[in-house]
């Protein structure tokens, strides 16, 4: 009877228990990661595109006005068009999903903002501060762009789950 006893299987027993627990845990953790990630991504996507969309709407309206008035050579129209061209480059999806090879989001964002200000100056209207602009977090995030550029795992908005500390630090672009 003793000879039938498979010592190897007993050693593996612990591993088997561990593995089955791990698999269940992993599946459960995955659900939580998806849920929390989704909540964060929704907020971030809204925040970013609310601002970009604002500039887009503004530029489109003025382009429409110039077009209506047939003022095709007006500088304002050119600035509006240039702003729209920049915005067309701004991704609707986190570029990590496609290829983010040389997309510099913070730079593009800065260009869009300054082009918007140029348009406003040309029109002779005051540039409207966006609702979120006063919040310091946005500026802070901009000041420390955390573009992850190490080939294999390139992400523009990188989420890092931290056991310790807030996740906000890991959300960057």
């Amino acid at each position, binding site marked *: 009877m003793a000879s039938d006893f498979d010592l190897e299987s007993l050693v593996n*027993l*612990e*591993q088997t*228990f561990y*593995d*089955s*627990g*791990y*698999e269940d*845990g*992993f*599946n*459960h*953790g*995955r*659900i939580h*990661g*998806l*849920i*929390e*990630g*989704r*909540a*964060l991504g*929704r*907020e971030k*996507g*809204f*925040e*970013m*595109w*609310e*601002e*970009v*969309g*604002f*500039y887009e*709407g*503004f530029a*489109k*309206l*003025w382009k429409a*006005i110039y*077009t*209506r008035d047939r003022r095709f050579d007006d500088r304002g129209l050119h600035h509006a068009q240039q702003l729209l061209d920049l915005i067309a480059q701004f991704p*609707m*999806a*986190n570029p990590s*999903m496609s290829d983010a090879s040389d997309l510099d989001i913070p730079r593009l964002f800065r260009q869009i903002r300054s082009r918007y200000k140029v348009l*406003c100056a040309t*029109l*002779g*209207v005051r540039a409207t501060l966006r609702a979120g602009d006063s919040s310091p977090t946005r500026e802070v995030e901009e000041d420390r762009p955390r573009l992850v550029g190490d080939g294999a795992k390139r992400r523009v*908005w*990188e*989420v890092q*789950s931290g056991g310790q500390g807030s*996740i*906000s630090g890991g*959300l960057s672009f």
Partner: protein
Amino acid sequence: MAGKFDLNGGDGSEMADESPWADEGDGVGYGSNPDVEWAKLSNDFTNAGYREGITAGKEASLQEGFDAGYAQTGAPLGRDIGLMRGTVAGLLSYVSLVSQGQDELVAEIRDISNQLANIRFSDIAPRDMEAEQHALEHLESTGEAVDENEELEGKRRMEELEDMLGSLGRGGVKRAGIEDVKRLKERLDSLCARLEVSCG
């Protein structure tokens, strides 16, 4: 034994204190009652695996969730609202430049602008049914709610505070919803039509 920790690329180093393997050296405990020991063995290792697994699973899927939420909900919804706000700001700047006493027109633009300014993402965000369902399951099985992300919880509390302050003296504030956004969009479109500009 060391090799056992090489699961899924993790080095397992953070397990040091909780690992059931760490108990093995003491030589006591195992052997008194086989059934109890069996259950203990099973429980300890299964639970240790579960703990490690849940962390790994969460980390593995966080980015995927983020990207999905960004692309499927946040960005398109933000763009819709942003476009409307930008259009309204453009209209306001336009009428301020060409103002010929069109008070009624200006008032309409301002009203739309003010209403749009009050809309928050949380007012119009679609519900995350999977998240709600899962939170419910947790509540039912453990009696505890799922921890909310710190940052988002902070934001939500701030909004509650704003609502509370905002409702002082006005006897309650009804938050706008997606239906209100649709109505504002229609008003905006008819304004554009009136001015004979095509607003996207």
